[in-house]
């Protein structure tokens, strides 16, 4: 994972609640075995509507998505996070996220920014009133700034550390091999094993 660095980019307002991962990336694209190249299929069905917000030229190349509560609910498909990342997004700002989507995003360096509903509302309104307005996301300072609006956000220390350092979590865990092996010694004998 790349280190997460402070960036500024156009913020697109997707003013909807409960956007599920089926909308973010429909199922027909889940048959691919690659990890990259999902960006063109982001919001595939909604994109067919010329009036869809992300089709507006002002939001072309946007890097921040501002949206409603429970973003990324539903299916566990990490393809949803991959498609956002592949399309150039570095952060998604919402009052709440689907738990699995949030985890998936953190693993690939896409920052889920959790802010109170009224602050997200203000950001959404600003992005709609001034199409093309840029947001600056600073994870070190835990701050989102857009025009005159500037909010501090909360994130757990572990996730923040992993993102800022671009850590390989698997490498970290593999260092705990003795503890994992010790746990395995304690596992009950009746637990199932399935020989190939």
């Amino acid at each position: 994972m790349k280190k997460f660095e402070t960036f500024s980019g156009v913020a697109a307002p997707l003013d909807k609640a409960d956007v599920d991962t089926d909308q973010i990336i429909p199922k027909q694209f889940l048959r691919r075995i690659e990890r990259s190249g999902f960006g063109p299929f982001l919001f595939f069905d909604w994109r067919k509507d010329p009036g869809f917000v992300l089709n507006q030229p002002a939001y072309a190349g946007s890097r921040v998505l501002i949206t409603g509560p429970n973003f990324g609910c539903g299916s566990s498909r990490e393809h949803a996070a991959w498609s956002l990342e592949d399309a150039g997004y570095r952060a998604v700002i919402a009052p709440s996220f689907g738990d699995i989507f949030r985890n998936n995003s953190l693993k690939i360096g896409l920052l889920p920014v959790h802010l109170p509903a009224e602050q997200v509302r203000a950001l959404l309104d600003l992005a709609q009133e001034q199409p093309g307005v840029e947001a600056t996301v600073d994870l070190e300072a835990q701050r989102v700034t857009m025009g005159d609006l500037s909010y501090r956000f909360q994130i757990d220390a572990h996730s923040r550390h992993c993102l800022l350092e671009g850590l390989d979590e698997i490498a970290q865990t593999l260092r705990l091999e003795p503890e994992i092996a010790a746990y395995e010694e304690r596992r009950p004998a009746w637990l199932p094993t399935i020989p190939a």
Partner: protein
Amino acid sequence: MAQTLIQKLWDRHLVRSTPGEPDLLYVDLHLVHEVTSPQAFESLRLAGRRVRRPELAIATVDHNNPTRGGVEAADEISRKQMATLAENCEWAGIRLYGLGSRQQGIVHVIGPEQGLTHPGMLIVCGDSHTSTHGAFGTLAFGIGSSEVEHVLATQTLLQQRTKDMAVNIEGELPPGVVAKDVALGIIARLGVAAGAGHSVEYRGSTVRGLSMEGRMTLCNLTIEWGARAGMVAPDETTFAFLEGRRHAPQGALWQAALEDWRTLASDEGAVFDSEVEIDARELEPYVTWGTNPGQSVPVTGRVPEPHGETDERALRYMALKAGTAIQDIALDRVFIGSCTNSRLEDLRAAAEVVRGRKVHGRVRALVVPGSTPVKLAAEAEGLDRVFAEAGFEWRDAGCSMCLGMNPDILQPGERCASTSNRNFEGRQGAGGRTHLVSPPMAAAAAIAGHLVDVREFGLVPA
């Protein structure tokens, strides 16, 4: 200190717990399927890593396989994905129940069926409906592909401890009301995000009275209101279901396991972060009218007035007008299947309604058993003939039209009564319209040609 079942299950899988960091949990069983695993295997190989405990994983093909015509009926990309799973399992030494295997089926159906899902385990899978396994008093939740890779490499998972929620359901279910309706009723009351950050224990006399199949349906739908894990404390119903299954413990180990499993209940006085009370006697057969599983009303009701943009958008997508009686909604398709409702008990309940009747001329109806063993067992009872004689298509096992990755999809504008778990826009096919219902309700709808109250159909035994 008095502990909840959730806390007990969490604690028994702790490899490491450090303040300020997520817990490191040991995974007892990793379920693998073709869609969310290829990127994990590839990344693992690129990093020069191996699968730590291949004998604690099992793989199957379920999401994109055709339900008739075998692998040849699949498109090229799907075939490649299924072949990739086979190659990866071969490389890693993971048992694969592929197409043509007598054990193949939906990953959440075959785990319990093979006796791989035991009380007290931690089970994960790159699929959000992994919560299904919680029915056995198991901590089970869905993960993404990066986490799949972490489990393959380390047999562990880093997780923030969740909050505990109790859903207490008391009272006898009215006739015609089944586990699916209990879940839809809960989601209608609480909304689709109420469970975020929580694990849930379903408790109370109603839950105790459910079969294992019913408990699986209830736990399966936990993710639809935002909680990753839902569970039921194991009891005699659980043990009776498990005993004698292929991977269940035998002999002295069975006795030792039983002794342990009987401790898996929330202690007297254990405190949950939140509790919800549901009166089962108030529940009815539900039908979703919108585009998330919380947008439902009793089948006797009407499409509600929209409250806000989300509702308005849902009504537009579903081409419904507020005030329309639910039972006046005509259907094009009926789907009986999915990890929510494709087990033998579900098929029996649907067949009971269908027996001796005909599918309405306008409706194309599909039954997709959850696994090959379910299919064979149903055929041994003659259920396939009941469905076929009524005009249903009887298919091979898989996820099928629950998510429409395979050729089983709705055409734009088609309206379907479905026993699956998600009525999201386009879920069953772009432009398709889904109404979630129970298996008996889906069966009745297929015959009536419109959504209908299975109780008034004169079919449900009182």
